[in-house]
């Protein structure tokens, strides 16, 4: 403004061109002078300079204005986010896994250790090529160390692998004495392998021991609770190599999954890495009978080891409640042949009565944690016993079903409805400990299914069956390895997607306030993701699972931050609406003034030049 006020009124007295009266005189005296096209004096620059100053001062002030109306945006590491997304999404994560095989044979072996190793590796590659897309698999340039023990000779394909030859002779003892037991042998192998000092590099080495014995007809293949399996029986070396490769790929790498089972993408873990297992006992009609359970004991004995085992995957909490007056919402019919009420698999979508079953009353599960409902349904006297019929007409042995990402339901028929005896009502019964143990075994199987594992201990295969030993913790060590690998991979993918959408959102809304807290969360998330990636490459599964969970949780926290959710961001339209009433007219004035003065100056200087040319 000061530029506009400085010129004194006397400055306006400057007149370009001569006075009109003198012009007529001049025409007489100087006929060649035309006032329309030429002028004698040099055109003044005063007004042009003035308007230009005003314009320039406006332009200079513009950065200050923009700075003053600026919105605080914490700087987000967009480039690093892009790098992470590219790293995670372009090539699926592959974990380095170590495999080794031991061949024990009394007789001679026709292959050398290196030949066997190459044979197994080629078989594994063939098998893995079928499902290379799965997230969290092992990297498929496997190195298989092989130890050969034939008679008293010992060969190793790798120097790292020290197999104590002759130690499996114990097996023969078991076998001869008739006390052969998978569990015992498993533990024995575990101690044997631990002795061999395989725990040096993280202990994540998968071993298959092949014991060739000509005496036995059938071939037994067992996968233990730990990270080893064994194949015993009459088997050719070529077949054995194929079988070993199968055990490696299908069990140890893929977790013994079948087609159609739940994939890692749908792992029931909340975004904050928490899972709440909510166990509900539903008494459909307490007027007939009411049942209670001794949940405290189950929690301590059965569930606590499982939560402990799954700790690297998720922070699991357990809660329980007993609900009453909770009828199911589907219908069942009476079957004379089976002497019971039947509900079929077609009824399952309508079984859960969301109006009457108020299961989700957990206050403790705040935020984005996942609740898995495990429901024991005690039918009323009018629909008891209640059985689930499978599509093939058989009766389900578990009498329950799962619903992915929601939980599972098991129907438990009280003994009273079989006896036909009138029970004393208004008395609280307890589910007997045996029944309760059976129920929770079913629940553990269902939990395994919800996590994408097999619920049965048998694995059918093209070339025979594979027995899987079960752990009393619910999950065996190699299964937990598979789960943590998948979990890490899925978490990192999710983290990268969340951070990617956050960065896209932030970049698309340039006037959105971003608090420092969000910046910090993004930073932590990236750091945790990097740590997880480095852990993946060094093969530390548990640590990578934990840090990937953190990365995902931080990313979700940043994305769902309350300040991001609010609508009250200061839009550009708002800013424009506030400032345009002043700046629009003023800028028009200033720009037009400068343009006019510039035009005029050019015109006048042309006139002056014309006059000068004429005079010359």
């Amino acid at each position, binding site marked *: *403004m000061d530029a*506009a*006020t400085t*010129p004194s009124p006397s400055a*306006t*007295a*400057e*007149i*370009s*061109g001569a006075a*009109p009266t003198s012009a007529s005189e001049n025409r007489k005296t100087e006929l060649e002078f035309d006032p329309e096209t030429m002028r004698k004096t040099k055109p003044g620059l005063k*007004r042009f300079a*003035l*308007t230009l100053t*005003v314009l320039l001062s406006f332009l200079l002030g513009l950065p200050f204005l923009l700075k003053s109306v600026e919105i605080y945006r914490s700087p987000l590491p967009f480039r690093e986010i892009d790098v992470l997304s590219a790293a995670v999404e372009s090539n699926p994560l592959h974990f380095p896994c170590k495999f080794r095989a031991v061949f024990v044979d009394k007789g001679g072996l026709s292959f050398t250790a290196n030949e066997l190793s190459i044979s197994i590796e080629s078989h594994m590659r063939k098998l893995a090529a079928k499902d290379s897309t799965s997230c969290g698999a092992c990297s498929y340039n496997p190195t298989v160390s092989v130890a050969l023990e034939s008679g008293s000779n010992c060969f190793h394909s790798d120097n790292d692998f020290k197999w104590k030859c002759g130690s499996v002779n114990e097996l023969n003892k078991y076998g001869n004495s008739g006390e052969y037991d998978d569990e015992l042998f498993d533990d024995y192998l575990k101690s044997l392998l631990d002795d061999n000092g395989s725990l040096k590099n993280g202990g994540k080495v998968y071993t298959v021991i092949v014991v060739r014995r000509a005496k036995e007809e059938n071939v037994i293949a067992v996968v233990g609770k730990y990270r080893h399996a064994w194949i015993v029986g009459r088997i050719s070396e070529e077949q054995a190599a194929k079988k070993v490769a199968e055990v490696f790929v299908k069990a140890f790498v893929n977790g013994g999954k079948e087609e159609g089972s739940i994939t890692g993408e749908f792992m029931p873990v909340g975004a904050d890495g928490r899972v709440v297992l909510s166990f509900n006992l539903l008494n459909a009609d*307490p*007027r007939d009978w*009411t049942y*209670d*359970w*001794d*949940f*405290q004991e189950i*929690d301590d004995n059965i569930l606590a080891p499982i939560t402990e085992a799954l700790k690297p995957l998720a922070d699991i909490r357990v*809660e*329980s*409640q*007993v609900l*009453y*007056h909770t009828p199911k919402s589907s219908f069942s019919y009476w079957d004379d042949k089976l002497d019971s009420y039947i509900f079929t698999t077609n009824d399952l979508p309508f079984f859960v009565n969301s109006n009457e079953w*108020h299961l989700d*009353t*957990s*206050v*403790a599960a705040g935020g984005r944690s996942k609740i898995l409902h495990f429901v024991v349904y005690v039918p009323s006297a009018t629909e008891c016993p209640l059985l689930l019929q499978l599509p093939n007409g058989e009766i389900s042995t578990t009498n329950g079903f799962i619903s992915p990402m929601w939980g599972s339901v098991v129907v438990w028929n009280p003994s009273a409805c079989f006896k036909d005896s009138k029970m004393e*009502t*208004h008395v*609280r019964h307890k589910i007997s400990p045996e029944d309760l143990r059976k129920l929770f075994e079913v629940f553990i199987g269902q939990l395994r299914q919800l996590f994408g594992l097999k619920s049965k201990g048998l694995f059918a295969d093209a070339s025979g069956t594979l027995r899987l030993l079960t752990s009393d913790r619910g999950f065996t060590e190699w299964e937990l390895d598979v789960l943590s690998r998948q979990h890490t991979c899925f978490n990192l993918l999710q983290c990268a997607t969340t951070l990617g959408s956050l960065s896209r959102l932030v970049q698309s809304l340039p006037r959105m306030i971003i608090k420092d807290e969000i910046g910090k969360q993004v930073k932590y998330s990236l750091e945790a993701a990097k740590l997880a990636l480095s852990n993946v490459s060094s093969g530390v599964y548990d640590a990578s699972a934990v840090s990937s969970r953190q990365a995902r949780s931080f990313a979700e926290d940043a994305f769902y931050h309350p300040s991001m959710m609010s609508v009250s961001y200061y839009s550009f339209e708002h800013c424009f*609406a*506030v*400032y345009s*009433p*002043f700046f*629009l*007219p*003023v800028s028009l*004035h*200033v720009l037009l*003034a400068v343009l*006019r*003065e510039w035009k005029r100056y050019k015109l006048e200087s042309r006139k002056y030049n014309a006059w000068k040319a004429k005079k010359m």
Partner: protein
Amino acid sequence: MFPLSEGADQMSFLKSSFLLFLVLFSASESTAEEDKVEKLNEEFKEALLLRPLPDRKVLAHFHFQSSAPPTRTYGRHHYIFPKSIYQLVHKFQVREMELSFTQGRWNYERWGGFDPISNSNAKPPGVELWADFDVPQDQVDDSWKNLTHALSGLFCASINFLEHSTSYSAPQWSFRSFSGKLRYGMLPREAVCTENLTPWLKLLPCRDKAGLSSLLDRPSIYRGYYHSQRLHLKSDEFDTSKMSTGIVLEQTLTVVLQPNTFSGKISQPSWSLSSLFGRKVSGKCSLSNSSNVVTLYSIYHFPKRVIKGVENLQKKGSILYEFPVEDYDESEPFDLELRWKVPVVWSCEQTPLRASRFLLGSGNERGAIAISMKSTKSNNVERVCSDEKECWLKVGIFQVVPWYVKVYYHTLELFLDGEPQSTIHSIEKIRVSPSEDKLNIESVEAMENEAVVSVIHLIFLSGLSLRPNLANIGGKGPILSSALHPKWAIAQELRAHSSAGFLHIDEYPSDANQGFDIPSAVVHFADFQSNMSFDDNFSTKVPILSKLQEKTPVLSYTEVLLVPLTTPDFSMPYNVITITCTVFALYFGSLLNALRRRVGEEERLLRGKAKKTGPLTLMLSKLFAKLRGKPWEPPKTPSSSSSPKSSINYKLVAKVALVACIAAAWQYYFQ
């Protein structure tokens, strides 16, 4: 329903010569012996108390009590106690909590205010929540905020608005004396409906599927005059002493209903459970330890000697009947019918003083808030000051005033029967936690940390001068000579001037023109405690009766006060911005034009233009000449024609100004 003759119980009283009534019950009584429950077990008890009110209405009070033994000895698994409440207590370390949802206003004059039922169940409209925490002093506010959020999720209500510092306070001693870890908040404008009742029912093991809660037919409850659902929990889970009792959750629902009967002659209507609720009780909730229906008649104005003769009576003149519901089932539902044979008139026991609160003055600046307390004709005062000549009542007032209403405490005045009293003399204790003004808000964060509620804690002695009649209004000197028929002439008033504060544009609620609600004041009569006393064998059997026997402080709530605050035109800031900017832009533009103006050149150009007038201007001037009726003259040189032209211009300007004036006047008068 049973035939009237069966098991009917007839009673008749002769009061004076004109009042006679007869109560008739049609229900069979049975006393099922309950199973002896172990000492350490979860319990659930349900009871329904029915009580006719003097103004032809019926009070129904549902009482459900669940208790869980302490976790240390019992474990975390419960089969009756609601999981969510257990988790709530443990997550926020709640020692005691009370949450009430109320619709309608408790009529203290007609429905009483002194007995335990009305004392603990007459609640202010909207939501009232107070909680006492067992956390360190600096975490109390955080716990409160988290608790409000958890509760609002649990009960489908906007309790989370109580997290704002404008809506809660920390009472120190007057409301309920506690350790200072108590927080108290009220939402007077919260609407209460079925969506709040359903989650409340979910906490009961049988919900509304069986037992007494099956009577809760939504249309009939919400048709009532007063509806208050309350949840009170008390836990000593965190006490280290061995004598802990665990968590006790008490859920009550109090409704005042109007029985629709056509008994024209008799003043009191007859009713039954099925006519009140449209349902019958088909047996008890199978999980409850006891299930009873209790009817209670508190007829105080009958001579005591008449009542003494009856068996099931308490000292103060209440008749009580208890009906266990255990033995009924769906084939034989329980129903209760009450018929009045003879008209009867009585009144409920009143609080010593009737408090009401109102606004005085006018406008935003010269207002005043007054709490007036009038004596009721209650014989309770008689008990306190029967032997003294001058009587003083101790009254505590707890009032939360949001910061946008500024109360000037130096203007606090006390009037007794219209005469000003010295406040120092009459007020025993006053504690004011002043609100902080929020005019200089720097940021949003700083705002939340401020204490923005002003709280008046006030205990004052209200002079109850007992006088022979109303006409003799004097100081507190006049003394009652004869104690036979005292009439209280008490009109006590507490006044403080107030003005409305200025609010930031963000701080107005969504419907600002409706006004702001000042939460109810809690009036506490410290000299009184109310309880009922029954025979021992009764109270052990029925939990609600033991509840009634507990001594509770006498509390009453005033009405919610609606303070109209001037609300601005919310689009005004933008209008101001626009008009200011336009003025500035005009000024700036004209200044810039003036600066780059060349006067001499413009004049020369004008002259040049005048010389060669275009054909259009020629035609126009011809037309004007014809209109004027003058011969057309060719345009003269500018020098000669300058003077008439300017005069025409003046005329034109004058005409335009006139038209503008007329338009302005038109606009002014006809709007």
